[in-house]
Structure formats: C-alpha cells, structure tokens
C-alpha cells in the first residue's frame, strides 16, 4: 500500500515540476495534459487506498525520512492514510483532477498556460501533504505550501494590480493566522515533547485543561486564517481575482477547508475542551449568516459564490465545534463537489461573457448554455440543501447536530442561513440564466464551453447528486477514528416537522429569488432605488465596512508608521544619535582648534595655565592633607 501512498502524494509534484520546465516557453498542451494525467494517477492511487481502508485495512503509515532533529525535537516526513485523510485525499484528487482537465480548456488562450499547471499541481501536492502528514509540522508544511500556491494562483494574472494585491493580502492574512498555528505547535511540542499526532493525542489526556485550551485556541487561530473565518475572512472574496478554476479548486473545495480538517484531525484535543468547541461553533454559525448576508446584495458572480463558500465553512465549523466531526467532514466533502461545480460553471459563464462578472449584465444565458445551466442549477440545489442532493444530507446533519446538542441559537441561525443560501444561490442562477438577455446591450455573443470541459465537470455533478447517499458508508468508515455520535432527533414528529419545514423554507426562498430576479423590467441596482439607500443594504454592499476598516485602520497606519519609523526614528533619532556623537566629537575639534592659534605667547600661556591648574589642585590637596587633623 505504501507505493500507492507515495504515488498519490508525489504524482502531483512530478506534474508540477514537469509543467514548471515549460514556464518560460509559450503555451504547450503537453504541460497541461501530463499533470492532469499524473493527477489522475494520484486519484486512482487514492481510490485504491480508499478501498483498502473501506475494507477495514489498517491505516497506512510511513515515515519517509527525518526532516528536523535537534535536542528533543524529532520531526520526520511521515505520512498516514487513515479514514480521515483518505477522505480528504479523495476530495482533493477528484476535484483537482476535474479542475485540471477543465483548465486545459479554460486556460486555452492564456499565454501563461504552462505556469498555471505548474502552480496548480504544486498546490495539489501541498494539499496532499497537508492532509496526509502524520504530524503537525508536516501539516504546517502543507499549510504554508497551499498558502504559497494560493498566492501564486490568485496573483496569476499579476499584471493586474488588483490580482497581485489580492494575492499578497491572502498570503499576509494567512500568515497572521499561521503565527497562531505556529504558537500552537510550539505549545504542543513543549507540553508533549512531540509533534506526531498519535503521540500528541495520547499525551493530551494527561494535560490540564488550561494548557489544552491554549493549544486549542492557537491551533484554531491557524484554522481561522486558512478557512477565512471572521475576522480574517476578507481575503477570500478578494481571492476571486484568480482564474476561476483556481477558485473552484482552492477557494472552494480544498484549501479553505484545511481549517476544518485541522479541527477534525485534532478532534481528540477539541473533545477535551468543549468550551472552545462551543466558541468555534458559535463563530462558525456567525460566519455562516454573516457571509450569507453579504452574498445577498453582491453584484459579482464569483464573490457571491465565495461568500457562499465562506458561509458553508461556517457550517462546517459549527459542526466540528459541536463535536460532530464526521458531520463536518461530510459536509466538507459534499460541499467540495457542488461548490467546485458551481465555480466551474461560473467559469463557463465568464468565458461566454468575456470575463464579465456582474450577473445583472447577463440574463437568459440558459438558451445558449444549457449544459452549464443544468449543472449550475443542480449545484445550487445541492448548495441550498434540497433533497435528495448532497447538500441536503450534510446540511441537515449539521442542523440536527445543533438541535440535538441543544444549541438552539446556533440551530436557528443556521436554519435561517439555509434560507438565505437558497435565496442568493437562486438569485444568481436566475440572474444568469433566466430573464431578459441583458448582455445584448454590451454586444456579447455567448457560447457554450468546450465539450470536454463539460465532460470533465460531470463527475462533480454526479457526486453532487449522489454524495448524500454515501452517507452511511462514509459514516461507518470515519467513525473508526472519529467520535461516532449519531444525531437522531428522538421524536419522529419533531424530525419530520423540522426536515419538511426546512425544505419548505428553502423552497420558498428559492421561489422568491426566482420570481424577484426573472421578472421582465426588473430594476437593476444603480444606487437610486430606495432599498439601495437603506442602511442595511449599504452595510451589506460594503461588506460591513470591514475591508474599509482594515484598510483605514490597519493598512494605512502600518504604512504610515513604517514611513515614520524610517524617516523619523531610524534616520532622525537612531542614526542621528550616532552621527550626532561623531559630529559632537568632530565639532568640538573644530571649535577648540583655535586653542592652537600658532602664536607663541598663547602657547606659553597655555603652559602656565596648565601649571597653575595643577598648582591649584596641589594646594587644595596639600592644605587638606596638612589640616586634615584640624578638619576632622
């Protein structure tokens, strides 16, 4: 089995390096095909491992080589394929294979085609390291690696100021969180003496709660960055500057879920500190509604999907925080499929619309882009959580978990968010595919994407539809290592009321959205209507003014302070002191050199003055000595 592990892990790396060879060359198809094939290999290997695990095989655990060893610290490159990581591996390899193939078409006309695949495969490799490592340090390698690749891919079109800015923002925001993560790792090391999961989890049992809480908090700070939880969420929306396949892979399906993975992976820790878990859940619920609210009014197709991702991440954290780790993981998986699909569909639309992102400038695209419309609609249905698509099962499980654990506030927030989700999802679908053909105003002639792109998307579609039915198989598998709590609402009546109620609520929201945004002559928001001038609308439109606040109260002061430090402190205080000391010495020379005025009389006088000065001292001392007995 180890060979499959290595195959799964390193195939993307080979693909990335292969593509990297061509980066300075002009577009070569082979640079896209080979990585895709290698990823497929990786996918196959992962599948074999999955089968192995599903058949009750022992987790595959390898230690490739030593990485760092000093003092008591010992960090190997160790990889483990167990129930959790194999799930992640499957998600990663499936989505990335699809995205790779899709990208061959999507990036067809880009001159940096080769570079794109180098980065993309490198990302997959990093992500696999992240999920497969058997220790926190290895996880951190992947953690930073995906950050790097995300930087490279967000800023892929680096000639755009906004893209490079967004890339840096993402990287730096992640770094802030990574510091927390790093501190968490330090805490783990100094309290357990190791970073290996099995060893660490064993040792956690003997630690006091305060330490554990500290560890839990700091690790979660890391997770917050990667998974763009409030208040470190702003980068995710800006990250949409990257090519759409990137958004699909990284900013929807895989990287952003790394935080969830971390919490799930550390479930033994968080199980011991339920208070922290509750906080995580609350934050997750908050982010869910918070992000969803911003998606309601946004006019950028990709951003809307990004907010939806954010919102769904909130769901996952809510689940994980409540101890429903398997549910979180399950939602993660399901979400990866339908959200990737949604993004890829959006990519198709963008292609058709010449990179236009404003859904208000589209409409009626369903006529020319049937396949895309179907896929996106289904994906939205799944997102909205309608039976029987994947979203229904996973989201419902989360709601149930919240309900069963008696966290009704969380439950109701999440429930309400489900409605919002349905609304904005179908707002989007409606605006893009239905209603008036507003794009004609802009002289665009949309066309459907390449066939093979659509074919490439189909596995995701399939999974988005059927993933829910795999729930029980999955449950049996992961609960081998995750807490196997089943969330059953004991009263059947309540269960049915809740389920049907939820479904109804969602359907109503969908219908409302559909109606509101397909009516002919619907007013396009242009800043004049009354709703647009309400406080709430503005608040939502400006993302609660958080980016503005960050810019105003963090970025600008930092820049100003930096300049101040440089010009005022470094140059005018620190350096000036040094130069000042030198200057004082030099100037005192300049000032006193007149003592040597070249006149012999002056020289003689100096001699006499010197002598007299000595004499005065002598007399003082002499008198003191002589009358010492008198004086005292």
């Amino acid at each position, binding site marked *: 089995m180890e060979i499959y592990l290595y195959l799964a892990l390193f195939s993307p790396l080979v693909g990335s390096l292969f593509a990297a060879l061509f*980066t*300075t060359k002009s577009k070569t198809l082979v640079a896209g095909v080979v990585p895709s094939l290698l990823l497929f290999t990786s996918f196959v290997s992962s599948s074999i491992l999955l089968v192995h695990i599903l058949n009750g095989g022992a987790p595959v655990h390898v230690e490739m*080589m*030593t*990485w*760092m*060893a*000093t*003092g*008591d*610290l010992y960090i190997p490159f160790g990889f483990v394929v167990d129930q959790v990581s194999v799930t992640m591996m499957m998600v990663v390899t499936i989505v990335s294979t699809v995205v790779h193939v899709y990208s061959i078409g999507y990036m067809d006309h880009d001159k940096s085609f080769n570079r794109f695949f180098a980065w993309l495969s490198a990302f997959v490799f990093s992500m696999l390291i992240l999920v497969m490592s058997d220790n926190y*340090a290895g996880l*951190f*390698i992947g*953690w*930073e*690696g995906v950050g*790097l690749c995300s*930087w490279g891919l967000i*800023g892929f079109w*680096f*000639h755009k*100021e906004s893209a*490079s*800015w967004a*890339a*840096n923002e993402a*990287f*730096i925001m992640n*770094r*802030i969180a*990574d*510091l927390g993560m*790093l*501190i968490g*790792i*330090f*805490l783990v*090391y*100094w*309290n357990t*003496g190791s970073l290996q999961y099995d060893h660490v989890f064993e040792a956690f049992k003997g630690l006091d709660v*305060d*330490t554990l809480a500290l560890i839990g908090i700091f690790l979660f700070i890391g997770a917050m960055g990667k998974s763009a939880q409030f208040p470190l969420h702003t980068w995710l929306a800006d990250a949409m500057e990257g090519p759409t396949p990137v958004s699909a892979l990284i900013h929807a399906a895989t990287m952003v879920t790394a935080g969830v993975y971390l919490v799930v992976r550390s479930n033994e820790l968080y199980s011991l500190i339920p208070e922290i878990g509750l906080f995580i859940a609350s934050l997750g619920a908050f982010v869910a509604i918070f992000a969803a609210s911003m998606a309601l009014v946004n006019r950028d197709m990709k951003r809307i999907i990004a907010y939806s991702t954010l919102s769904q991440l909130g769901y996952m954290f809510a689940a994980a925080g409540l101890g429903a780790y398997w549910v979180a993981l399950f939602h993660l998986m399901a979400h990866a499929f339908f959200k990737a699909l949604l993004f890829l569909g959006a990519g198709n639309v963008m292609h058709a619309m010449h990179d236009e992102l404003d859904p208000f400038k589209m409409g009626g695209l369903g006529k020319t882009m049937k396949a895309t419309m179907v896929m996106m609609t289904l994906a939205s249905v799944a997102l909205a959580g309608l039976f029987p698509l994947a979203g229904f099962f996973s989201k419902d499980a989360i709601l149930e978990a919240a309900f069963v654990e008696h966290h009704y506030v969380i439950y109701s927030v999440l429930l309400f968010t489900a409605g919002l989700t349905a609304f904005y999802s179908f707002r989007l679908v409606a605006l893009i595919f239905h209603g008036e053909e507003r794009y004609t105003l802009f002289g665009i002639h949309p066309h459907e994407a390449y066939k093979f792109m659509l074919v490439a998307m189909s596995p995701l579609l399939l999974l988005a539809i059927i993933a829910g039915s795999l729930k029980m198989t999955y449950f049996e598998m992961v609960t081998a290592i995750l807490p196997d709590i089943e969330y059953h609402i004991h009263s059947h009546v309540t269960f049915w009321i809740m389920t049907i109620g939820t479904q109804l609520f969602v359907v109503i929201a969908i219908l409302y959205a559909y109606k509101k945004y397909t009516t002919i002559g619907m007013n396009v928001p242009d800043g004049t209507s009354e709703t647009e001038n309400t406080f709430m609308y503005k608040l939502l439109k400006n993302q609660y003014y958080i980016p503005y606040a960050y810019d105003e109260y963090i970025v600008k002061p*930092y*820049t100003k*302070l*930096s*300049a101040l*430090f*440089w*010009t005022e*402190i*470094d140059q005018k205080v*620190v*350096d000036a*002191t*040094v130069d000042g000391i*030198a200057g004082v010495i030099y100037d005192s020379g300049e000032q006193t050199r007149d003592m040597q005025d070249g006149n012999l009389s002056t020289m003689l006088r100096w001699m006499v003055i010197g002598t007299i000065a000595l004499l005065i001292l002598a007399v003082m001392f002499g008198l003191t000595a002589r009358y010492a007995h008198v004086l005292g």
Partner: protein
Amino acid sequence: MVDHILSILIFFPALAGMFGFMINKDSIRAYGVAVGVIEFALSLLLWFWFDGGVAGMQFMEQIPLLPSFGINYILGVDGISLFIIVLSAFITMIGIASLTETPNVKNMIVTLLFLQMTMVGVFSALDGIVFYVFWELSLVPMLYIIGAWGGPLRIYASIKFFLYTFAGSLVMLVGMLFMAYFYYQATGEWSFAILDWYRLILPENLQLWLFLAFFLGFAIKVPMFPFHTWLPYAHGQAPTIGSVILAAILLKMGTYAFIRFSLPMFPDASVALMTPIAIIAIIMIIYTAMVAFAQKDVKQVVAYSSISHMGVIIIGTFALNVEGISGSVFLMIAHGVVSGALFLLVGVIYDRRHTKLMSEFGGLAHVMPRYATIFGLMLMASVGLPLTINFVGEFLSLLGFYQQSHILTLLAGTAIIVGAIYMLAAYKKMFFGDVTKEENKNLPDVNKRELLALIPLSIITIWLGIYPKPVLEPINKSAEAIVQLMHDKSITDEAKMRIPSPLNKAQTSQTSSEGAH
C-alpha cells in the same frame, strides 16, 4: 594536511591573494575563481573529515604566539563553526565567479581573498586574541570594497561601517582582557584560550559586566537595534559582492560570537539579560521590518530584512536550549545563503538598469521570468516558507525560545507576518503589474554567469530546507555540548532552571511546563 587543514584554509586565500598581484589583469578573474574553487574544495574536505558524532573541537592546532601572556594561535572547529566556514568559502567562490565588470578587478579579487582569510579565521579561532585579530582585520577589506567600488555615499558608508564596528569591538577587547585577567587570578596563568575561559566560573555581577562589554562588540556587528544604522548605508553603498559577503558572512560573526563567547562564558548573565535582549531582538524584528517596508530602494529592503532576520537568530541564541541554539546556527547559514542570493539578485537588476529604486521597475516578471522565479524562490525562503532553508532555522529558533517566554515568542513570531509584508510588497512593486518603463521592456533575463551563482544557491535553499539533517546533526551535537556546559557552570538557581540540561530530559519537561505557566 588533516592536522593543518584549518591553517591551510585560513592562509591559502591570503597567500593566493598576494600572488594575485602578479597575475595579468585579463586572467585575474579565472585565477580568483580557481582559488575560490580550491578553497571551497578544501572546506568540503574539512566537512568530509569532520566527525559529526563528536561534540567538541576538532582539527585543533596550537602554536604559541605570546605564551607568557597566554596568547596562542589556537584553531579548531565544531559543528557550529564548521558550516559557517564552508558557507564563507562557498559564498566567496560564488561571489568571485559572478563578479561583474568592475574597474580595478585585480584589487577587488585580491581584497576578496584577504577577506576570506579573515572570515575563515574568525570562525576557526579558539583564542580570544586570534579571534579578535581576524575579527578586526575583516573590517579592512570590507572598508575598501565599500569605499572603492561603492555608490555615491560610499566613503561615508565605509567609514561609518568601520568606525562603528571598530569602536564596539574595542570595548569587547577590554572585556577579553578582563577575562584573561580573571583567568589569571583564578589559576595564576594567563590565557586567552576560549576553551580555558569556558572553565572559568565567574560571580554573577562580573558576568553581567563582561557580558555587556562583549555584547557591545557583538551587537554592533550583528547589528542589533539601536546599533544597526551603519548597515543600511553599508549595504546601500556597497557593490553587489560587498553586500553579499557582508550579509552572508560578516554579520554572522556577531551572532556566532554570541554562541561562542557570551553563552558558555556567562550563562548566568545570559539568563539575566535574556529578556532585555529578547526585547531588543523583537524590536529588531518588527521595527526594522516596518522600516524595510517603507524603503524605496530594493537593496535597502533586503538590508533591513537582514537586520530583521538577525533578530530571529538572536532570539534563537538566547533560547538557551538545544533547539534554539541549533536553530539559530542553522538560521545563520540559511540567512547567509538566502540574503546572499537576494543581494546577488539585486545586483543583477542593478547591472542592467543602474538603479535600485523599486519605482523604476514593475512588471519585470514579464520580461525576466527566470529572474522573477529565482527572486520569488528566495523571497519565499526569506519569508520562511517551510521546505526552504530559512524555515528550519526560524522554526527551531522560535520553538526554542518558546520554552523561555510565551509572550515574547508570540511577538517575535510576528517576524513571519511582517517579513511577508515588506517582501511581498517589494516583489509586487518590482515584478508585478505592467511594464511601465520603456527601459525595462527589453531587459535581458539572467545570463549564464549569474545563473552559475544563483542556481547553486537555489539548490541549497531547497535541499537544506527539505533535508537539513547533514548540517543540523553536527550543529545539534555541539549545541548540546554548549547547553550542557552552560547548565553545569551556571551558578544561580534561575539559570539552572532556565537552561535545561540536555542530559536530563525528564527534568527538562517538568521545569519547562512549570516555567511556562
């Protein structure tokens, strides 16, 4: 040969430099490269012969110099100095090989060879005075390099560099004389041998004073805040090769000296002053990173980034445990490679455009993709991305220091944030966006000669990032020895507690978890 490898390593370049005067101007470059290669090969031989399993000094040589006063020419390497020596041979070789067209190239190469002598000398000296000799002597070639081949402010910069370090090290000399005197008082014999000094157990207040005397010399060299202002000038004005060597090797002298002198000689003072020094280091990290962010000149950015990174090295050093010290030594090497490469990279663009202002560039990634790639790699290494060489060092340094203080580590850890900020900003300004300036439209990408220097550095950057073991293992051994020594000779209870004995692991984890809360 084996017995005298260190002397050969030290004096071979100097002798070769003297012979270099006789070489014809046209062939001097080849000559320099040849000498550099031989020296590097010798240093590799040193590594090859080095017994990684031994913690103590190896290849010891001893020749009496002023025996009645306890000054002897003593050399030796341990895991800590070994790699810095190899690195200095390597960087010098690469520096000479990548030397661009310069006036008076012969003088330059001869000077570089002399500089190499002093660098190897500093890192292999085991006698205080011999150390001091090479330490001071290294200023002269550097003074000349900055002053003769530098920018418009070169004279100011070179004099500032020289005098500042000179002043600091004179105070250090006084400290050394005190050390020898205390040794004399204790044993009736003069000795400047560092290993002899290790055996001296001093009362705490004396340790404090001596520590401060040494500190001034080292701190200016490192340079630590607020003694750092010479560095931006020196880097800003120095020619590429000067900056490379300055950043890669010369700055390491200070941090190396902390480990070689301050820690084992004054364990109690080290513990007592750990917090203030850590605070200075944190100021270095954050403040200089912010200053770096405000720079307009890309070379200044790298220069200030050096200071910032040196802060992390200091933090690691004063972790006073094996993890931290190993990490800081490793980071010295890492920073040597990475900052050397960064300065070389800045030199590449300076050669083409004769400006280092970032506003003059933009969109270079379009015209110079290879250059952008290598720069990006080094940028990421500088930022401390895992699997690059810097991360290992930074991680271990911070990890080590976490045992001593949580809050301070948290603050020091902002290095990874602020570092990313200025580095990414600089990268964005230079490489991203559209090519706005007409002059930049047809810039040639890195040529073969530049690649000759940059590719090995890139390989090392990644290789040691992934597989640091061959370097980390000997470092670890020696670091353990130093920590053990410090633990054994410390006299105050606090020091005993703060410096964990590597032999006594059970006790370590106990005290650490107590100390942590």
